[in-house]
């Protein structure tokens, strides 16, 4: 896999370190893994979802991995994995480049990725991605989240994700134009900074051709669920 080679070479480049006078490194290589894993009250046995990101690197240059997906009854319905190089370009924003693989639904799809990830004014956490797929198909995703602090440890966070595509892809059931909107509201309690159980609601709706594909398959195009999960990082 060509891109894995590129990532490895890049890793070596980024992680080359300089040393500080008294033996300390002001910009050490740091790793962070963070995510949410939750159960959802939807049809089927033990439906669940994950959204996990991890990075390794220094202050301004990092390698970033993002994965998310959904499982029902022991079967993975949706899953994707992104490998990205992340470069800080402004005080609050990183530009990210890399590749994305969609494993489910089948068939497997490959995308190139350009994303802007950061903190917008008024403290909205934003991840805006542009995907370039096979045969010139484009996809776009906007993910935005806000944290409203009810107390120092009790946090209410609304989140929205919007997906759109430039061309139909009948095999994966995604259509041209606005494809889906997902909105969530989660209330978490930070037992520690790193570990926070939460409850919330999650609502999803498919639009346009994507909705048509779903209807043809006999699937719902709108679903609202109660979710219970854990947010963690280390």
């Amino acid at each position, binding site marked *: 896999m060509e891109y894995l080679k590129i990532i490895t070479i890049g890793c070596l480049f980024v992680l080359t370190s300089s040393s500080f006078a008294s033996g300390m490194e002001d910009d050490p290589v740091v790793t962070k893994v963070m995510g949410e894993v939750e159960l959802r009250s939807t049809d089927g046995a033990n439906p669940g979802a994950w959204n996990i990101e991890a990075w390794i690197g220094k202050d301004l240059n990092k390698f970033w991995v993002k994965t998310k997906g959904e499982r029902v009854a022991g079967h993975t319905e949706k899953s994707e994995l992104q490998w990205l190089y992340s470069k800080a370009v402004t005080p609050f924003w990183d530009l990210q480049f890399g590749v994305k693989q969609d494993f489910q639904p089948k068939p497997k799809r490959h995308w190139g990725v350009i994303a802007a990830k950061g903190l917008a004014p008024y403290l909205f956490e934003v991840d805006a991605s542009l995907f370039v797929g096979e045969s010139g198909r484009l996809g776009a995703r906007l993910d935005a989240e806000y944290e409203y602090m009810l107390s120092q440890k009790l946090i209410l966070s609304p989140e929205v994700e919007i997906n759109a595509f430039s061309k139909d892809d009948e095999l994966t059931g995604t259509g041209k134009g606005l494809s889906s909107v997902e909105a969530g509201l989660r209330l978490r309690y930070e037992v520690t*900074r790193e570990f926070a159980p939460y409850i919330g609601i999650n609502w999803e709706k498919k639009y346009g051709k994507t909705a048509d594909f779903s209807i043809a398959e006999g699937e719902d195009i709108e679903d609202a669920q109660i979710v219970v999960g854990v947010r963690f990082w280390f």
Partner: protein
Amino acid sequence: MNSKTLSRRQFVTGVTIGAAALAINPSLLFAGMRNNITTLTGNTFNLSIGAQSVNFTGTMRSATTVNNALPAPLLRFKEGEMITLNVTNHLTENTSIHWHGLILPSEMDGVPDISNDFHGIKPGETFTYRFKAQQSGTYWYHSHSSFQEQTGLYGPIVIDPAGKDPITYDKDYVVMLSDWTDENPTDVYHKLKKLSHYYNFNERTHTDLMEDIEKKGLENTWNDRKMWNQMRMSQRDLSDVTGYTYTYLANGITPDKGWVGLFEKGDKVRVRFINGSAMTFFDVRIPGLKMTVVAADGQNIEPVSVDECRIGVAETYDVIVEPKYDRAYTIFAQDISRSGYARGTLTPDASMLGEVPELDKASSLTHSDMGMNMSNMAGMDHSTMNMSWPMKGMDHAKMNHTSMNMKQTTMVGMDHSKMDHSSMGQQKSMAGMDHSKMKMTGNKKMLTMDSMVTHADTEFGPHIDMRSADPQYRLDDPGVGLRNNGRKVLVYADLRNLHMTHNYPDPDREIQLHLTGNMSRYMWSINGVKFADAEPLRFKFGEVVRITFVNDTMMNHPMHLHGMWSDLETGDNRYIPRKHTVIVQPGAKISYRVQVDAKGSWAYHCHLLYHMLGMFRRVDVV
């Protein structure tokens, strides 16, 4: 030396309290048992650096200590004597000791790879420091290697004057304040890199919002917070590391046990406060007693009576208190973010303890802490100013980087013809500003301005989240959390050298240093350049340099220049106080003079341990 002065200088030692603690294994719990720090006197000292088990929180941890003591032993010697210190490293890693505030040759300054011919003390090796004590007063010493300062390697120094001490006192105590964490300091640093507000449990919440709306109305609340929200900054970011992980210590004693110093009614008690913390600013007071501050950073000043005193990391203040009653007084040292405190007691009887005050309510940073000039802004409508940091749409080259200050000083000083107003217009947020009005308010101020604040090219980029628009000298500002608290708080403007300084030569040149960083990425630098990438500063031997600091962050930074004094410009040049560590308040500027009288290489840095790796410079005096 006559017997009277001898008795006055007699150091109070050996007050042992806590009989219950005696039952516990002394090798583990020494911190809870000893009341006074070990004192070593003379002119030759043998210091052995090693690892030591300690228990401050109920959990056993390993500390880095000198002669098995935390704080390290108090070293007491006499001005004018030749001092020899044999420092042996029993650790498995390199170590070093820096004598903070002492004027000595670069070779003896103890900063690995910066001090001349010094590369740290390797495991098993002994390094001999030898220097002449050229000064008197209260100082301290600490490791300048890895994070050993956080794990306990710090101790007090008292140098008795060669001549008569202008300060008279009956009792003499050192109170060394510090912060202890059970965490590995490297983990603390990494946590800050991953989540910079990790230790801040004082953020604005729903409750604050409701209170503000009730008090000020929705619109004013929105407008007050607008700039913070747009800048993506927390108004409650007072300290990077807090009582969430720290246990604050007074002479190595936790607040629940408390350090105890005895006095007899009518005594003049000299308390030498030393802030030996890694990251903590302390606000110190002794309710019921006025504190007469007699020395700052070891140097005598004209006595000034205060209720409270902020001690930045690495600063020292000597105070005289005169308890008139047979009662106990609490020494209360709360941290700047009000997340905890260190405690001591001055009492006529060790069994008598004073009342412990409540922690103050934590304050919020203001617009002046953001580098704005509030004195001239009364008439300005903040909501139309709508500044954003950084201002991407501006043509920096043509603006000569004269900051994005759209108010008086730089606005007036700027060459408008060179300013590309059309490109500024593209910056939407600036369109609403009334330039003509600002220019008018500015003219007057310009006359008193000495130097213009300019931001270098290196201050623009992902590593910098703020540049002060119009930093002010705030020598009479006690700082966030101490403003208008009903107590008389020491400010830098109060510091007046005990001796006249009217012959002080004028500075030959000025060096402007901007303290910069990106809080959320947890990156720190000077002029936007971190130490690893920076050229050394070059001072010419014999010159007088004025250092002007501009703080382009929202943190207080205690800046420490090794080897030479920082002679603080307080506005009265007849009584310039000498300091070794100077707090630069958030969004403020401050200046001091340096008589460049020490050849060699010196460290120059922020004394916050987790800032200093980046906010650091080498100074070469040639």
